[in-house]
């Protein structure tokens, strides 16, 4: 196996952390601000897009996945992808014969 990939773990530059943090704060303000504007159904889309952006920032920079090995990328992605599988269940709720309730 190739063990060398992480051998020399250079500490990431301070600047990167500060930038990430600033990005997160800006996004936080943005999401709060947007929630006061009525965009109709777009509201949810915007809120979730911002949340996903924040998540990506945390994962890639704070958690160091950006510099991680392929295996780390793989497992980091696996959980989030598998979680989406659960939404397969919604199919049942959309097509349940009863109109009201469930």
């Amino acid at each position, binding site marked *: 196996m190739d063990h060398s990939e992480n051998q020399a773990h250079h500490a990431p530059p301070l600047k990167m952390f500060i930038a990430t943090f600033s990005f997160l704060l800006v996004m936080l303000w943005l999401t709060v601000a947007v929630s006061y504007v009525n965009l109709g159904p777009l509201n949810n889309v915007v809120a979730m897009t911002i949340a996903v952006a924040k998540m990506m920032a945390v994962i890639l920079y704070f958690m160091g996945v950006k510099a991680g090995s392929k295996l780390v990328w793989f497992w980091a992605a696996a959980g989030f992808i598998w979680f989406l599988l659960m939404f397969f269940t919604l*199919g049942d709720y959309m097509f349940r014969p009863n109109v009201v309730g469930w």
Partner: protein
Amino acid sequence: MKEETNSMPAHDAPQVNYLNWSHTVKSWLLTGDHKRIAMLYLISVSAFFLVGSAAAGLIRLELTSPRGVLLENETYNKIFTMHGVVMVFFFLIPAIPAILGNFLVPLMIGARDLAFPRLNLLSWYVYMAGGVCAVIAMMTGGVDTGWTFYTPYSSMYSKSQVVWAICGAFFAGFSSIFTGINFIVTIHKMRAPGLTWFRLPLFVWAQYATSVIMILGTPVIAITLLLVVVERTLHIGIFDPKLGGDPVLFQHLFWFYSHPAVYIMILPSMGVISELMACFSRKRVFGYSFVAFSSLAIAALGFLVWGHHMFVSSQSMYQGMVFSIISTVVAVPSAIKVFNWTATMYKGSIRLETPMYYALGFLGLFLIGGLTGLYLSSMATDIHLHDTYFVVAHFHYVMVGGTIMGYLGGLHFWWPKMTGRLYSEFWGRLSAILVFLGFNATFMPQFVVGYLGMPRRYHYYYLMPEFQIWHVLSSFGSILLAVGFMLPAFYLTWSYLKGPKAGPNPWNATGLEWTTQSPPMSHNFDEPPIVTEEAYAYDAEAEEAEDIEEAPAAKPAHAPKPAGG
């Protein structure tokens, strides 16, 4: 804890091995050695099997008469719940991964241990904690929800110890999560030099696929069961129909794990069968890559079929169809495995030793179990069969006929490696035959009675007294089965104490685990092995030519030199 300095080697074993380097209790209970942890699991899992079997015995006894024999309603319900919970969460799910997997994965990949030895030990303690919760549940009155814990019965109506039982299942779940994490990382990162993915034994592939299911599925049931507990105790509920919640949501979440869980049970067993088929046919497993990838296919597709348990639960008809068709598709990788194993025997040099008896038994029983799954995954046929003894027979065929046969086969195969001792072939074969016959006698009648309309979880069937004949047959069969299951307990114990020495490789098998001494030393290998060949370097043709009478001299398979001895 007392400090004992007990460094003397055991009286009857000359070499130092993982069993005898120390005999203190502490050296066992605080061990990080995967092999010792496997032994701890072996003992505790067997104990739970005994508990679950006793419950099975009571079930079969009770059902010999349409009005029951000795149990009250309430008691019967608690007995089958305990039977299901113990067998599923405390026996079958940990059985192969935590015993054989724990013991063998590092040996098979040439590693000194699993990646996280202390996590491994923790997983055993968590399992035991779960076991204690389950025992508390039994002692303080039992649980009567069935192993499926369907809401709202479990969350609002049952007056039994649901919370304790759920805690038990919850802990057992975490124990298998820890095992899964350990296996995944170990298999990814700790293979011996030269041991590429496609040189891995198929058992390791199967363990890998199983671990993936464990870490992706188990948390789902953990939190779902936790929700039942908070709904029951704190009324923080989301399944409560009185509030407008959906009780059927629980079933979705439960089966989101519990269907993949049936593959947690069967995949490791399939891995064992691949090893046995190769070794006892003296051939490379036919279609290695198909067998390997079918494990992954089962693991992945297995996550998309959970709704086939809910065809009559008021699930939408369209969603039911989607689940049904995917269930049909997921049967195909199983078919691939079955046919490849059969083809492996073609032109082999077949040795009918005890493990092979079990392996052949597995084939027949798993086929019937799997194919009856087809009746259940076809929606129309499931309407009538759902929640009848047909389902009971189906899952015993796959769980007992499939998984336990594989487990016992594997246990017999690697027993000389685990203990350094041989057992009696005669008794071994006898027990395999008894289990096979007894099993069919027990569960074949249940297909018929299920088709006739006998619902499960019934202990009175006085409305249909004509079913009695089938129940009696089944109960008689279970006696035979019980004898078959009990025998190994005796002769294996005898073998452990008094059996003849096995030597490093009694079956003349390939695979890294056979290159080290039996039982292995604590650090597994004297020198880190380097692999140059793939896992199944058997050659039936050459072996037959060499010498028909005697086993050919041990041929080092893919390690530089056999160690120990």
